């Protein structure tokens, strides 16, 4: 019993990379197109919100990107109502992505820098998204920013997560198989499925790892040559391999660059930065702990300038404490 599967692809705050990844499956895409009817994809064609509202009984709603404006929020809610399976596609939809780093400031502060105070900006009327402004006698408004950036599952229930920035071919292939199985045999995917590897990046990393990793001092990528065969952490370079899911075939590692963690954490991690603080801090000077004073050890650890931005680069909105707080000063 073959049936045409209805698919809607909606984007929130995204860079467009995931849209490209969806289309980037060569001939396999034809199998999917033959079985499906793409009813909404506003990155590709001129669709408006009303077009999504008109739709009923969408089988797969794919959401790309995080929730950053009120329009994204609205679209996510409409999509949830209209579709059977909602898919958070890519790191931004699953964890908030790089846009999430904006949560270190209030939305007004962000807009002020972006639209008013940057030296290259000339904006005498101080037009910012959310405020009405007049052009040639017509009132225009851009969508307001939501108070904070959020991943999709903080707003609506999500059925399937596809991790990756963007998800690699294998993951998308697996996802397409789900769609084809649903179209051809009516096999419904299990709700709550995460399409990504189950292991961490270190597990598939081809580099040679010493018995005991010990960091004498932290080094940045541009400071001297990097040994392409030795574990990066053992060389003092911060590599997020231990808390990143192995769904990327270690592409950066093979190119002699440390992992930045774009594929998101493995399951059961509550707060990625806290988890990595635990990992990286305990590696510092393991062999000489007792020879150094407490202050000396703390000094080495504090060489890490920006723990939030480095460890939570792609996942800040999904952490335990996921926005800037207002607390009494020291």
């Amino acid at each position: 019993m073959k049936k045409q599967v209805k698919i809607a692809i909606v984007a929130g705050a995204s860079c467009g990379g995931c849209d490209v990844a969806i289309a980037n499956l060569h001939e396999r895409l034809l199998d999917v197109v033959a079985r499906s009817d793409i009813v909404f994809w506003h990155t590709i064609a001129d669709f408006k919100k009303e077009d999504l509202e008109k739709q009923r009984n969408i089988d797969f709603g794919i959401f790309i990107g995080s929730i950053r404006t009120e329009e994204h929020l609205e679209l996510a809610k409409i999509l949830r109502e209209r579709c059977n399976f909602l898919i958070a596609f890519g790191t931004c939809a699953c964890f908030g992505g790089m846009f999430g780093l904006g949560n270190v400031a209030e939305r007004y502060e962000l807009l002020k820098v972006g639209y008013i105070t940057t030296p290259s900006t000339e904006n005498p009327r101080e037009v910012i998204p959310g405020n009405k402004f007049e052009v040639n006698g017509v009132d225009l408004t851009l969508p307001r920013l939501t108070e904070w950036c959020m991943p999709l599952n903080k707003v609506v229930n999500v059925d399937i997560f596809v991790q990756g920035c963007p998800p690699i071919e294998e993951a998308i292939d697996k996802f397409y198989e789900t769609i084809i199985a649903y179209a051809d045999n009516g096999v419904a995917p299990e709700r709550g499925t995460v399409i990504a590897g189950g292991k961490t990046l270190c597990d598939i990393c081809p580099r040679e790892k010493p018995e005991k990793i010990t960091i004498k001092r932290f080094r940045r990528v541009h400071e001297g040559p990097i040994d392409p065969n030795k574990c990066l952490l053992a060389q003092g370079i911060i590599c997020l391999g231990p808390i990143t899911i192995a769904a990327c075939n270690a592409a950066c590692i093979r190119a002699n660059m440390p992992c930045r963690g774009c594929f998101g954490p493995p399951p059961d991690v509550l707060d990625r930065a806290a988890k990595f603080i635990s990992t990286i801090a305990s590696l510092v000077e393991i062999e000489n702990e007792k020879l150094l004073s407490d202050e000396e050890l703390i000094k080495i650890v504090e060489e890490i300038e920006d723990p939030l931005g480095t460890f939570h680069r792609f996942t800040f909105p999904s952490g335990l404490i996921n926005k800037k707080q207002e607390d009494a000063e020291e």
Partner: protein
Amino acid sequence: MEAVKEKEDFEPRITAFLCRWCAYAGADLAGVSRLEYPPNIIPIMVPCSGRIDPQFILLALKNGSDGVLIGGCHTPNDCHYISGNFKALKRFALLRKYLKQLGINPNRVRLEWISATEGKKFSQVVKEFTEFLKKLGPLKLR
């Protein structure tokens, strides 16, 4: 005026992760020696201060604690598991930086080395920390 009053009435909640061998034994000693200290503290026994995942501390803060106390064995040689206290020390240093970036006063998390014989130090630390948090006011997360 009202804000001041609120601060005076405020009783902070402190979650304390105490290592089984030193700090918890120190707390026990404070108890059997009948030393007085404020009742604001909720002690949790952990096998070693090296077992305390920074996630625990964030969870405690998120779930209503105004402060977190970590108690471990003195460096360099007291740790029952040889180097657990060093792990705690290094994690704590980095966590402080992270908390600062989150906009949370890092002094809400306090690390103290308390040995099994230092019941007096334990009661002193709890007293001081409670006073400090009273002055600082409650942690209001948003």
